[in-house]
């Protein structure tokens, strides 16, 4: 199993690289911690619409693909895990888009310790 620990926001180049690698792996799981939980936001939660009706981010930059769209294109829901404390700290609701383990880091370490596991941290 390939485990990807993602702590960066959707616009980070490291996030794009992480999801690219995860998409190339048959057996990938993604653990979202810290700012990584923002990858569960959909476009309508993360941004707004400008006067031309185009989706834009809060910064005014055009939206390309929202965090969850990119993540969901890569993995199924049961392969995405998010840290409850980090979700709450950032006001992000998982809304069934990810599994929320009671013990996020315990679950992560258990997966890491399994024979044959590979861990990639971004």
């Amino acid at each position: 199993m390939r485990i990807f620990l993602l702590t960066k926001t959707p616009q980070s180049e490291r996030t794009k690289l992480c999801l690219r690698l995860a998409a190339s792996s048959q057996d990938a799981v993604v653990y979202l911690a810290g700012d990584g939980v923002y990858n569960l936001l959909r476009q309508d939660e993360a941004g707004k619409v400008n006067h031309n009706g185009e989706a834009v981010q809060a910064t005014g930059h055009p939206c390309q693909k929202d965090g969850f769209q990119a993540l969901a294109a890569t993995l199924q829901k049961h392969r995405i895990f998010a840290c409850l404390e980090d979700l709450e700290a950032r006001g992000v609701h998982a809304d069934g888009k990810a599994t929320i383990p009671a013990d996020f880091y315990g679950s992560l370490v258990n997966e890491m310790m399994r024979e044959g596991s590979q861990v990639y941290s971004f």
Partner: protein
Amino acid sequence: MKSFFFLLDSAPYGSEKAFGLLNAAAVSSKMDAAVGLYGDGVYLALADQDSRALGLPNHSDILYAYPEIRVLVHEPSLVDRGLMNAGLLERVELMDGEKFFEEMLVADGIILL
């Protein structure tokens, strides 16, 4: 033998990330270690680096001091920065995107700073 892929995705000078990453790779040189240059990290592949004015070590010297460490360069990052015709260090290996990502995925661990 464990294999580690040290990914440098930031500029080689101006922060301690590259120096720290290269030293970590040097310490791991008895294992199967590779340094991957990606994004702004590809600037480390340029030949004729002169860091004296910065008062910093020349990071390319570290690469030459440990020939057992492979140095892989993400070619699309070079193209994005207009560096395809620039002189590069002799010991780097240019790789297209797919090959570069394959090298990352076969490693037991990826380390970024």
